[in-house]
């Protein structure tokens, strides 16, 4: 039915509306719902705080989207985040002069993990979910050994700013994810990288025939994902101020939920930066709503799982229709 093309101004509006990620309407509805349940939470200052809360999720979600685009999956992002957060505090030890090189070391660690994930899954053609699952348990061990089971140190004030400071009334961490989103969006939109990513995810074989090295495209997107996961861990460290062994735990699933709700699919070739950004905000508002309704982490986990499955089913309506038809026949 979407193929019907009307003429005139109304169709231009419709087209513009259609180009907005579907989840945007969900976000608006959720904010209204939150306003009804807890009017205080929708004051501008609290809405701005969502931009901060969503920061780690948006950054790692964009990484996950890049991997889903090429038909992959990264279950190790949470473990990378945790290691990055712990490394940041232990390397900085509250010394402002160390902040930047420590941050760079963390990003290099993330890139290296991503590169290995990419090599194993794209070059050796090992299933992505096993590779990244194995990697995540391995990194958990590395994090525990490195921190001795209890992370030490803290981050200096100049670094903390990027987690909890404000620039012109807007949370500084919003500028971090804003920059990431903008760079990735522009790279996808205006450079050949974008075309290669979408093409590789849609049909790796024809891409190969067209002379694009799909293996290197895939390795590149895993590397980008690992780097962004490490950056996300840094933002976490900058916000909490100390190391924690559990910061990344929720983000393995959440990053996937954000990407899927933003329109990504497990078959590759679908998904967008703007979709993931809005879906991340959607998830954070939803968790606030859950909290406002006095529900607990158990509910949060259940709803998160349901959202992933519902999102997938909606992305995959055709097979559901076929099934229902088959039932009647």
């Amino acid at each position, binding site marked *: 039915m979407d193929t019907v093309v009307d003429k005139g101004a109304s169709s231009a509006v419709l087209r513009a509306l259609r180009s907005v990620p579907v989840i945007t309407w969900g976000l608006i509805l959720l904010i209204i719902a939150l306003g009804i349940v807890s009017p205080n939470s929708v004051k501008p200052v609290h809405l701005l705080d969502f931009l901060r809360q969503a920061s780690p999720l948006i950054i790692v979600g964009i990484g996950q989207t890049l991997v889903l685009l090429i038909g992959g*999956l990264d279950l190790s992002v949470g473990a990378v985040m945790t290691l990055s957060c712990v490394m940041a505090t232990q390397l900085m030890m509250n010394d402002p002069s160390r902040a930047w090189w420590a941050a760079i070391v963390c990003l290099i660690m993330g890139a290296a993990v991503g590169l290995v994930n990419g090599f*194993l899954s794209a070059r*050796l*053609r*090992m*299933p992505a*979910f*096993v*590779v990244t*699952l*194995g*990697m*995540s*348990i*391995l*990194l*958990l*061990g*590395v994090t*525990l*050994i490195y921190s001795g*089971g209890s992370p030490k140190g803290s981050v200096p004030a100049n670094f903390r700013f990027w987690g909890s400071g404000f620039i012109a009334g807007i949370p500084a961490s919003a500028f971090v994810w804003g920059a990431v989103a903008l760079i990735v969006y522009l790279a996808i939109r205006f450079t050949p990288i974008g075309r290669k990513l979408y093409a590789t995810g849609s049909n790796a074989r024809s891409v190969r025939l067209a002379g694009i090295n799909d293996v290197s495209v895939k390795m590149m997107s895993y590397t980008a994902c690992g780097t962004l996961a490490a950056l996300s861990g840094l933002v976490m460290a900058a916000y909490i101020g100390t190391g924690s062994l559990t910061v990344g735990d929720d983000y393995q*699933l959440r990053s*996937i939920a954000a990407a899927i709700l933003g329109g990504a699919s*497990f078959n590759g070739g679908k998904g967008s930066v703007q979709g993931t950004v809005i879906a991340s905000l959607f998830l954070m508002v939803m968790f606030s709503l859950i909290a406002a309704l006095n529900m*607990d*982490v*158990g*509910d*949060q*986990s*259940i*709803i*998160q*799982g*349901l959202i*992933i*499955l519902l999102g*997938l*089913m909606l992305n*995959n309506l055709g*097979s*559901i229709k076929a*099934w229902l038809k088959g039932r009647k026949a």
Partner: protein
Amino acid sequence: MNEKIIIPYVVLIVVLVAGALMNPLLLKGTNIGNLFEQVTAVGIASIGQMLVMLLGGIDLSIGSVISLTVSLLSVLMDSVGIAGSLVIVIAVGALIGFLNGIGTAKFKIPPFVMTLGMMSIAAGAALKVRPIPGGSIDYRLSDFLNDRIGVFPVAFLFLIVLFVFFYILLKRTRFGRNIYAVGGNEQSAALSGIRVDRVKIAVYTLTGILGALAGIYLAARMGTGDPNVGKYYTMDSITIAVLGGIHLLGGRGSIVGIFASMFVLITLNNVLNLVGVSSFYQYVMKGAILLLVVALYALRGRKNVQEED
């Protein structure tokens, strides 16, 4: 017998010999009994993981099913009694597996995402019924399952029975052959008249039940409830299945290999404990084993066509 079955046994012997040289306590009677206890829950879960992997699927929710089972038992046992609560948790496990099967077979959701979503749901449910560790498991259940016949815990004998049952199911029944056929090539299985969807749903349901059985034993062994207890069983069961020669793309592998590979993983853990290595290294070891074994298969799979046993 093919090499994929022999390799896990060779590895097991190497691990046992090397471990015994590092610490002779490894092969002492009491420690052997411990090994049998430690292997039981993860062994049951691994049979379930193997079944879905033979289909070319995966079950990332099995750890959460174990957590949910343990949590439910610790809450229900006082009011519903042993038999009633066991029936309930097995039904819950079956339901979760059934839904995994419907999602993958009917809605065509890739198994790793379907079960990942289910992992989150079941883990959340476990936290709902038992937010913090506590409660108690009827001591009669614990005493019965932990009782020893010689060096064998009763529960371990159940595990043997399960192995024999599923060996026969896989090798001697039409259903078993259908599992291999669907895992080997879904299209041709469908063309030869196998109801592919039904096989899938049945297998995922069985895996859910096996998850519940693993949880029942774990609850009895711990004597108390804990909503996070199953966390690492998903990973361990996948590692064991892969190490036991079950092919990740389905259709190939034997339960005989699993019997050895579950002891390999548990013995390695045990050896690391006995020689006093921090448990932190176990995570690195498990991750490395999984990546290494899958990488080896991936490299070999490139050059040779696989044999059937």
